[in-house]
């Protein structure tokens, strides 16, 4: 049997199964070098076990217990909640604080009202060019008549702004001077037409073009006309 050095340690620590234990014990009975190794390790182990426990001082023990109590009282104060903390504040300070809060709230409310009565002007063309999806509420028949009139119409539009992770819902008030729905539909239609290539024959019939030049030129002309419309 080959000298199993690490197995001696396992035998010493009693971390070995019975069959292996018997094998090593049998080996120790015949191998002198392993037996010497086993003995020296056994003595070292015994000495290590007999090492006296090293304990901290009593003052340190008291300081740890004090630290625990301090932590608990701090935790209790923290968990007491805002309501009890509110009553812990002296009454004059509390009254002054509440008054200031109410005044600030009233002032903020007034500012809010003023800003609602005069909303900022938003360019419709800019909003359509932006990469944002607009969700509009379908206009009522009665409101359609108002839209034709020259008076500016205030309508709530829900916008979904694309943000890398979160979708934020933004509600804004936009002034539409003319019919907004019809306008957007028309522009969309024109864009669709320009995307599709139109056969040269049809173009000639539509615009009475006698001079049949290169198709690229004709395409350019149509796009130009469409843009002008």
């Amino acid at each position, binding site marked *: 049997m080959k000298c199993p*050095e*690490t197995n001696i*340690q*396992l035998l010493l*620590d009693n*971390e070995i199964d019975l069959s292996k234990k018997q094998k090593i014990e049998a080996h120790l009975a015949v191998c002198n070098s392993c037996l010497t*190794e086993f*003995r*020296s*390790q056994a*003595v*070292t*182990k*015994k*000495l*290590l*076990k*007999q*090492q*006296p*426990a*090293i*304990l*901290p001082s009593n003052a*340190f*023990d008291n*300081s*740890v*217990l004090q*630290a*625990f*109590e301090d*932590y*608990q009282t701090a*935790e*209790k104060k923290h968990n007491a909640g805002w309501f009890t903390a509110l009553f812990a504040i002296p009454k004059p300070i509390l009254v002054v604080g509440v008054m200031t809060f109410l005044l600030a709230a009233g002032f903020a409310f007034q500012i809010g009202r003023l800003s609602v009565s005069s909303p900022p002007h938003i360019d419709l063309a800019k909003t359509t060019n932006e990469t944002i999806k607009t969700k509009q509420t379908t206009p009522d028949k009665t409101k359609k008549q108002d839209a034709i009139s020259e008076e500016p119409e205030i309508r709530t539009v829900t916008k979904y702004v694309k943000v890398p992770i979160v979708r934020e819902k933004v509600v804004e008030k936009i002034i539409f001077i003319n019919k907004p729905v019809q306008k957007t539909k028309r522009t969309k239609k024109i864009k669709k037409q320009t995307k599709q290539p139109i056969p040269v024959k049809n173009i000639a019939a539509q615009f009475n073009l006698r001079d049949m030049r290169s198709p690229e030129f004709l395409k350019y002309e149509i796009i130009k006309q469409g843009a002008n419309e």
Partner: protein
Amino acid sequence: MKPQIDKQLIEKAINGNTEAFGKIYFALRGSIYGFAYRMLKDVSAAENITQDAFMFLIENPQRFDAAKGELLPFLCGIARNKIIAHLRKHGTKLETLEDEIGKFEALENSKDSPLNALLHQELTQKLEEKIAQLAPYQREVLILREIEELPYLEIAKITETDLNQVKIRIHRARKRLAKKLKSYLSESEEKYYEVSRN
């Protein structure tokens, strides 16, 4: 054998019961402080680490899972992380004069005959010195196994290594220590210690 800490006692301590915390502290402080002191040979650092380890349990109770293991290995793991951080920052230190004075006081108060006590104390001192001379990775496994009497599996968890690595480290540490102590342990001394301690 190391004391077993009841789960209910731990829960009580976490919930703010000072008595329960005191029981746990006094049962395990020797192991944590001893481990830290033997690794660093610095009283104030060992005290700080001991306090930090116990307060970590109270401040972060969710980090301890009783189903995964005992409290002592958990605290030893925290202490070990702090020991490593300290060793990286300061390195090891020699014993202070206060410790030497403490040893003489202990000798005077010993119940054994002064000669026996002196012999024993000398060997204990030599052993501590030799342990301190071991490499930190060998030292920690040796202390956890031989002095704190933790099983191999728990040591593997604390040191974040596999079981075989723990076995190898313990084997090498023990062999190296035996070699270092060979001059102090003649056959007569071996017999003396075997007789006197049995």
